[in-house]
């Protein structure tokens, strides 16, 4: 089943990317552009990406225990590509990520990496910039939630702001 779906996804993806590069911005809404945009899952249109995470509830103050857990996973699985500043290494720097992306998008990117890279236009833009596919690090949903909390803490420390994309 999966095998048959994949070419379809790729086809849609290639249409999207060729549209994106040729169409030149969102204001210029060609017929094809609108059509394809409407085919995108609503979660993508809402900026939540695509995957199992549809709704994340956040407490105002980052949970300290979760931050610590998140940092441990970040150190082991993420730090070799993502710095906590705005410096891009292999992947984008994490500074300000919670102000740019919705929490659902962040967690979907972590847990549903391959599909995000194939479907989500924002993830694809990042791939075009970084030119290395983000690896699926097999992070469990609970661990992704802890990483999110750690990223909120990091943004608070670095910029004094968090959750700006909600």
């Amino acid at each position, binding site marked *: 089943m999966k095998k048959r779906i994949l070419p379809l996804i790729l086809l849609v993806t290639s249409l999207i990317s060729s549209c994106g590069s040729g169409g030149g911005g969102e204001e210029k809404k060609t017929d094809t552009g609108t059509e394809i945009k409407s085919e995108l899952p609503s979660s993508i249109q809402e900026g939540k990406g695509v995957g199992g995470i549809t709704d994340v509830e956040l407490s105002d103050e980052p949970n300290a225990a979760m931050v610590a857990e998140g940092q441990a996973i970040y150190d082991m699985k993420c730090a*070799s590509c993502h710095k906590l500043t705005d410096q891009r290494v292999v992947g984008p720097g994490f500074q300000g990520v919670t102000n740019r992306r919705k929490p659902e998008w962040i967690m979907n990117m972590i847990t549903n990496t391959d599909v995000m890279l194939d479907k989500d236009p924002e993830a694809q833009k990042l791939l075009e910039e970084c030119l290395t596919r983000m*690896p699926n*690090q097999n992070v469990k949903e609970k661990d992704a939630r802890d990483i999110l909390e750690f990223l909120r803490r990091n943004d608070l420390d670095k910029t004094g702001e968090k959750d700006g994309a909600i």
Partner: protein
Amino acid sequence: MRTRKVNMIISLVTIMGGMALVVACGQRNATTVIEGDAAEQVYIAPGEYDEFYAFLSGGFSGQITVYGLPSGRLLREVPVFSQYPENGYGYSEESKPMFNTSYGFVPWDDSHHIELSQQNGEFDGRWLFVNGNNTPRIARVDLSTFETVEILEIPDVAGLHCAPFITENSEYLVSGTRFSIPIPQKDVPIDTYKENFKGLINYVSLDQDHGTMELAFQIEMPGFNYDLARNGKAVSHGWSFLTTYNSEQAHSLLEVNASQKDKDLMAIINWKKAEEYVAAGKFTERPTSYYHNLMDESTGIAHSQEMKMTRILKPEDCPEMVYFIPVPKSPHGCDVDPSGEYIVGNGKLSADMSVYSFSKIMKAIEEKNFDGEIEGIPVINYDAGLHGILQKPGLGPLHTEFDERGNAYTTFFISSEVVKWNVDNLEILDREATFYSPGHLVIPGGETRKPEGKYLVAMNKITKDRYLPTGPELAHSAQLFDISGDKMKLLLDFPTKGEPHYAQAIRADKVKPNSKKFYNIEENAHPYATLGESKTKVVREGDEVHVYMTAMRSHLAPDNIEGFKVGDKVFFHVTNLEQDWDVPHGFAIQGATNAELLVMPGQTKTLLWEPKKVGVYAFYCTDFCSALHQEMSGYARVSAKGADVPLKWGLNETLRENQEQAEKFYEQLENKSK
């Protein structure tokens, strides 16, 4: 004198003429036209999977190769008994202990018989076993990772050809010495063979949860050559059958002197009885030496243990444990049909094949229908145990496998063919030429209670005319036949590696769902694992330097290291931080005298590098991993012995920070020593 010479020449010419005729017979269809839909039958569309895994031993390559059936596509080579530069097996510090033996480090062997683990007489897809023929050893491959995880040496045997045949619930792996030798080894004239040489039949038990092997006991037998075995199944479960040749006990020019008698012997062993004798303490303990090498699952590090004692059972002390029955001249095959009732004994030098009946053998034993005994072992009356004789089926019968429809398929080495016959009524049903000289053959499950008689693979020893020539050395060929109909049909030739000796094939869905995709980095308990880039470091302990390195597409950390000195032993412990399928990272460094490492996602592996010359040496990832793979590299600076270049390391701008860290490290070290 002259007449004698002429006679000899005449007889030689006659023999050769006869052989040419036989060979010509086999070659008559060298350009066989494959029937219409054969290509379709073996075609697996891109993205589709094969129906069966076939595991072929690599013979003198010492390895195992994995093919898909029916496509014949090579899926993988699994290193077992030989060092493998492709992934550093046998070169990496973790895997080196796998080659420890009582003879020292032995990085090659001759792998022969593949045995998959079974439950209730069916393959269960957990483990795969294979023997090393030259330095007697049995290896276990874990089928979730396709990695060799254990090697057990078998003491006091020579040429462990007859191995490692499994019982139907994986209770034991049975093996026998191909060559008898003095036990214990001693300095004696070779022509004292009859007095001093003995043969051992060995039972290795398996831990049912982990597959771990243990040499349970050895049975001391007369000094014959024990060649092949099969264990009983269903009705004959609890018994082993082994063909033996050289019952003449010759020790020179065996091709003549070991073929004197019209019949050799098949050994029949009641291993349940043997178990009882072991439990009752009827064994003698004999000091010896053999190695047991086991890979630790959580660290991926192999450990060796020298074992120093073995338990010997002697037939004369253990009545009703061992019997013989005559078998046609110079047997090579011994196979038990799916019902467990029929045992096929093949004499390579006999035109006939003897098929025995287990129930008749039992009856003969009960009635003590014996024709004498050999060294205290009763010899069962040949006719009393016989189900019947398959008369003149071909020349040089070797091995037999079965389908689920009551048919047997036997390879004929000399007449180059596979012959299909009915086990019950011994009627020959079909024959197909092979190209040329087939040894073993395999039908998926053809050794078990539940064969799947759809395909048959014949493994041929001679390949001329089949592929584009590659100089004098040609790949051996395997030939795939469709055996689902009344007539066998050749579908495909495919080249194989080394001298594949035997194979087993298993339905893919028994293995594929358990196939590991990566190692959970959370479970990596390697003592030199680096679980995160922030933990990378370089530690000097005298002349030893340990580099804790991580790999992630597309960089190695640290990528600049200074402070190595000529004469150091540098251990690169590389941890692959990836948790994604199919992204191993390689590690190679200029001037290394061993191999590279190929580190699977989540694993740690260690390469020893001993820099000999001053300079700056590049290291890099060998497995193409991303668009920036070429950039995944670094430098190691080597200074003269005694130079005061400090040890420092880093990645990008953090190099300087690490210098501080290095200084701190030395400070702490100094404080500790104060």
